[in-house]
């Protein structure tokens, strides 16, 4: 990134970065360090001095079945909603990329869900999937409580998976379509000249060339499902029933702000941070590699 022509006014350079650096220190590094400190200590929420306790908080959460439940729930949620949203988005992007009549109008609407706030998405789906109103509960006329996310864990899981996938589908669609449209048209034409039909071209040319995007989206979707799902869970299931949808980020919030147990919340935050950082590193390593098609 070295430029030949650069300015060299140090004071100005410093003044320009100062505001953001200050913000980042105060609202990013400080809290992160503090979370680390809290994770290794116990403390009264406000004031008082902390007691250094080493790994005790971590031992405690790792020996807690409720915590492992939330890990498990998060993983199930991540896998299901990632698979669903990526699958649907890929299919739609491939269809739109064929540029049949009207594709622009469809494409336009496919973007929309991403603009909508997670709790609004949650509330909309909570209504559609409500046990006693909306639409899906119509099947309860066959047998009572065939569908009831307020009582059945898997129904609740399905509900938040669908809501989250709906939102992420739009996001994934945008990326898939951008990637598809960056494939030179000549490649598709060359394959057509080589005798390859529409489906075969999708399989042999388009999808392989989408691999980097697919991988990127896998990581992003898993991360988002760990992080951004709070709004959906909070408003649809509240982690229930019986902790069936008690995602990690939701549990951190409940332990920290409802249970006021900052140490436990901090220790869980640290674990989640490492998960997210790990995923991000995987992605960076891959970004290095994916240049090679260019």
């Amino acid at each position, binding site marked *: 990134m070295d430029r030949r022509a650069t300015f*060299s006014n140090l004071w100005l350079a410093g003044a320009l*970065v100062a505001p953001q650096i200050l913000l980042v220190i105060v609202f990013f590094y400080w809290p992160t360090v*503090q979370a680390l400190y809290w994770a290794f200590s116990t403390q009264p929420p406000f004031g008082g001095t902390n007691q250094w306790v080493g790994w005790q908080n971590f031992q405690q959460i790792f020996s807690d079945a409720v915590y492992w439940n939330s890990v498990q729930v998060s993983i199930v949620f991540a896998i299901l909603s990632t698979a669903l949203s990526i699958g649907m988005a890929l299919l739609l992007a491939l269809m739109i990329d*064929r540029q049949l009549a009207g594709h622009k109008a469809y494409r336009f609407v496919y973007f929309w869900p991403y603009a909508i706030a997670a709790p609004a998405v949650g509330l909309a789906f909570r*209504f559609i999937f409500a046990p006693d109103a909306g639409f899906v509960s119509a099947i309860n006329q066959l047998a009572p409580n065939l569908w009831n996310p307020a009582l059945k864990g898997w129904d609740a899981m399905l509900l938040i998976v669908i809501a989250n996938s709906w939102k992420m589908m739009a*996001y994934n669609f945008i990326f898939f379509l951008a990637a598809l449209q960056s494939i030179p048209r000549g490649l598709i034409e060359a394959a057509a000249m080589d005798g390859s039909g529409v489906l075969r071209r999708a399989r042999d040319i388009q999808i392989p060339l989408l691999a980097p995007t697919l991988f990127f989206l896998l990581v992003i979707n898993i991360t988002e499902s760990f992080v951004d799902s709070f709004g959906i869970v909070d408003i*649809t299931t509240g982690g229930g029933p019986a902790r069936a949808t008690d995602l990690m*980020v939701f549990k951190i919030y409940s332990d920290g702000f409802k249970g006021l147990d900052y140490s436990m919340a901090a220790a869980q935050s640290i674990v989640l941070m490492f998960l997210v950082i790990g995923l991000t590193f995987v992605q960076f390593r891959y970004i290095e590699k994916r240049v090679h098609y260019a």
Partner: protein
Amino acid sequence: MRDAGMIERAPLLNAVTHLLMIAGLLVAAFPIYVVFIASTHDLPTVNRVPMPLWPGDHLVQNYATVWNKSDFGAKMINSLIVALGVTIGKITLAALTAFSIVFFRYRARMLIFWAIFITLMLPLEVRIVPTYAVAADVAEPLRWLVWLFGFELGIAPINLLNTYTGLILPLVATATGTFLYRQFFLTIPDTLVEAARMDGAGPLRFFWEHLIPLSRNNMAALATIMFVYAWNQYLWPLLITTDARMATATMQLQKIVPGPLFGQPPVWNEAMAATLLVMMPPLLVVIFMQGAFVRGLVATDK
């Protein structure tokens, strides 16, 4: 006639494609439609299973009720202030930082770049608890900072709870925009900087007269993304506003429905009216700024 993008005729496949596109349309639009329809009926109608799919005549009444009951006007204004604050703050700070990192030569610039870049890894949600503590007394890290430089100052506690500053600043403190600007600035040829310097322009003049006009597209893209991001914030405002006058529209959704686990079901027609009110502003931004939105999303996340 073949459609524009097609190479060969494939009538069957085209039919399937159209079907899938229509199915996709239903999937994408149906929930939004349902929210709208539900917000136009009275309570008994809305609670019918399945709910009717055509609009009712209680639209005005439902919205008026929601609007008055939870003072939605004030909450929308709060949301707007926060969204604009984050958007403007981000566009400005990110441009300044990227300008410094890309166009000035100094030792620490790679360090600063990485220090800011790493923030991309950890979204606000995973460090929510300590960030809350900082907002409760933002002077604490400042005291430490000053102490690091060898001073001891009795800075009085600064409480950002229930303030716009508290709602806005933590959302500005990430690298999204910085990274986008940096990528763009790096594409600006050295010769442009050289030409500007030959014309006698100093750094600030170059920034204002060359970089900013050239960055217009990127700014629009970033602004669209940031507006949507900030408007849709939920957890953060929920934590740091206890005063109803500071509540944002998005977090208000939690207040107007009973908790999922207990109590009676929500008053659906009003809940859906509120939902629609919350979804509309970012949706409209996306609809009117479609190009910028897509560009912004693809650019900021890579």
